[in-house]
């Protein structure tokens, strides 16, 4: 893999040869494994609560876990069969073992009879459709897994003018968005129209990277066929991280999303192409989110391809579907080459956030030499899409200087890894920044708690003093007149 700083208006990097073994065939459905493990982990480290018991028979599309505090969306059985265990299991991207519901697949795919399609969505209110989307367990399929109904929920103060359907692959090498647009563009556009109806936006821009001509052609054909004047296609140059929500909005509209704000603040809502297609399936068939497209790539797998995979499928099963490992596999990665996480083993299960699995060989990975001192060359600053000065952040991070870190905008770091990839001194910048950011959060919370405790203590002392004074005053009043204080 070769990394160069992107030139032009946008900040970022170009990655050449990043696990780009393309699969030209249409995404086929991976076979359902004999046993699945649906992880209840949510991205924030909390977990869903199971609503089924061990031994219970569940049908395809039946709710098996939900979130009582509405932090996440419900999770549905992706096959029919018996719940054989509810236990702690390793989950992708989680440092601790998380609860998971294990289902023994009976292979009959018996559908939950409660799954009903929506006949004509245009007759339904936004609230009703949002409730359906929430009940359908639909989350952002670009990788962040933010609940879609929350992102689409109406906010009167910030009306949505534009819906952006993000077809810019978040990292090079991942192909699920590309494949979806090539072969399911019609479905994606239907989902986009449903979302336009919900948010009441006047236009919808489908953003596609310039290096995906087939996806562009297929989407354009589908837009023409849809005959909807609100839909249009925008071509985005190929660089990383063009698919980042904020970076994409800056490119498309020339406006920046305010720090700490949301795309809504500039009248935009972004949704991934996969999310749009999932909404289409939900409305048309009533089927909730029980499967997703996953790209399996890297030189360490025999036949790289993009597959439609049931949630809960073990990665080992997925690799077998792609012809198994090649002898020189060195590392298994969930996610892309830039932001992906190395996995300890392949018994982990596909979750809603799993868009890519890379079976990497030494040739896929960038060899990392020993870290050398920073020479302030500034390559990192040139590559940073958030316009930060990573060389300064690094200095302050090493010195554990929280004030300096805050001043140079550590909280605006999106941890994309561009600085890391271009650093000639091979400094582990992104992991240092990640750690510094989390430490800063911990320190801030600690400081807040301390301040709160101090405030409470001060208020308490003050209250006591006031009470004391009041008591003395009353005492003085009650004393018989004429008698003098000594």
């Amino acid at each position, binding site marked *: 893999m070769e990394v160069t700083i992107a030139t032009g208006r946008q900040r970022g990097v170009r990655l050449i040869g990043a696990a780009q073994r393309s699969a030209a065939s249409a995404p086929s459905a991976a076979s359902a494994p004999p046993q699945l493990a649906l992880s209840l982990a949510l991205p924030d480290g909390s977990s869903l609560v199971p609503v089924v018991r061990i031994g219970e028979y569940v049908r395809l599309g039946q709710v098996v876990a939900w979130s009582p505090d509405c932090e996440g969306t419900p999770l549905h059985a992706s096959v029919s069969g018996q719940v054989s265990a509810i236990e702690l299991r390793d989950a992708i991207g989680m440092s601790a073992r998380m609860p998971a519901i294990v289902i023994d697949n009976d292979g009959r795919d018996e559908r939950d009879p409660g799954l009903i399609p929506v006949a004509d969505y245009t007759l339904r209110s936004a609230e009703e459709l949002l409730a359906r989307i929430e009940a359908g367990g639909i989350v952002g399929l670009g990788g962040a897994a933010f609940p879609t109904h929350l992102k689409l929920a109406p906010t009167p103060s910030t009306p949505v003018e534009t819906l952006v359907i993000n077809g810019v692959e978040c990292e090079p090498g991942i192909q699920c968005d590309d494949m979806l647009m090539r072969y399911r563009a019609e479905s994606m556009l239907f989902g986009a129209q449903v979302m336009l109806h919900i948010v009441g936006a006047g236009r919808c821009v489908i953003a596609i990277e310039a290096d995906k001509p087939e996806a562009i052609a297929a989407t354009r054909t589908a837009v023409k066929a849809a005959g909807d004047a609100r839909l249009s296609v925008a071509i985005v140059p190929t660089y990383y991280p063009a698919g980042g929500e*904020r970076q994409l909005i*800056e490119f498309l509209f020339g406006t*920046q*999303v*305010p*720090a*700490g*704000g949301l795309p809504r603040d500039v009248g935009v809502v972004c949704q991934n192409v996969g999310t749009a297609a999932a909404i289409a399936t939900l409305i048309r068939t009533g089927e909730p989110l029980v499967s997703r497209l996953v790209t399996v790539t890297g030189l360490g797998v025999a036949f790289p391809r993009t597959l439609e995979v049931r949630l809960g499928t073990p990665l080992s099963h997925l690799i077998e579907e792609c012809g198994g490992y090649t002898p020189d596999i060195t590392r298994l990665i969930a996610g892309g080459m830039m932001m992906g996480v190395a996995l300890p083993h392949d018994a982990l299960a596909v979750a809603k956030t799993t868009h890519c699995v890379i079976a990497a060989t030494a040739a896929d990975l960038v060899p990392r030499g*020993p870290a*050398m*001192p*920073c*020479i*302030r*060359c*500034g390559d990192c*600053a*040139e590559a940073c*899409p*958030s*316009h*930060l*000065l990573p*060389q*300064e952040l690094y200095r302050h991070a090493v010195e554990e200087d929280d004030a300096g870190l805050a*001043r*140079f*905008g550590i909280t*605006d770091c999106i941890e994309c890894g561009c600085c890391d990839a271009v650093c000639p001194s091979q400094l582990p910048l992104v992991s240092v920044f990640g750690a510094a950011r989390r430490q800063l959060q911990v320190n801030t919370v600690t400081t807040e708690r301390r301040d709160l405790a101090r405030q409470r203590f001060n208020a308490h002392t003050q209250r006591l003093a006031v009470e004391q004074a009041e008591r003395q005053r009353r005492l003085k009043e009650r004393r018989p007149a004429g008698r003098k204080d000594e």
Partner: protein
Amino acid sequence: MLLVLAMLVPAAAADVFWFGPGLPIQIVIASLSALLAESVMLALRREPLQPSLGDGSALVTAALLAFALPPLAPWWVAACGSAFAIVFAKHLFGGLGRNLFNPAMAGFALLLLTFPAEMSRWSMPIVVASHHLGFTDTLTTIFTGVPPVAWDAISSATPLDAVHSGLKTGATLQEVLARTSTAHSASIWSSLGILLGGLGLLGLRIIRWPSPVSMLAAVVVSAGLLNAIDPGTYPGVLFHLTSGATLLGAFFIACDPVTTAASHRGRLWFGAGVGLLTVVIRSWTAYPDGIAFAVLIMNLFVPLIDRLTVPRIYGHAR
């Protein structure tokens, strides 16, 4: 780092053609001294010799310093300057990446202040010198400090020296320039060599455009302005660009990432400051060339420049 050294080759070739084999010998002396100083300092700081010794940064410092020395300067001049640069300007500040001052320029400034006589005996271009010193003669001169013929026969003032002292004797600028024309053409050739190497560095994206462009622009504007006001006292823009260390400073010194500002905007300010100060020092102070002092002064301003030129972060108001 090694590519930086490679990009100095065209200028070194021009230098050898005009002034004889002095420069390569000075580079070797300075490099050995720098590597020795680097090893001693790493050992004193209890740090491993590798990879610091092999990163080539000490060699670049030594080579740049050697370029600024008179080709026939005694060996201990290069050795002292190089060792000072590594020990004081680099390691006492914390080593590579932490130094405030450009080490080569700090070493050069020390030499200029402590050994003014040795530092001003610049070689006469071979074409006009009455004696041609071969490799052995050059080596003997550097190591014994005694040339085979009188110094006057082989040394001459640099064009900047000539202008600087010539004007004091009452000669007009034009007369002085005519007298030093051969030396100046030598200087033009090495400047072209530097330019070639500098463009190579830019092309390979080893250095970035802001510092050299803004520094040269500042020299052009300030020198041009002075020349327009009083052409009899202040030499023209081309003279400033092609004499002394102007181009070396622009492409090899002001671009040192460690001692320049962090952001593009900051680097523009840094370069402009160096360019302006260079012309100011050349025009009105006791020193004929000003690159070294201009760089060192601007190095001092880098923390301030960095503070004032933090780029606007995505999504934040200006």
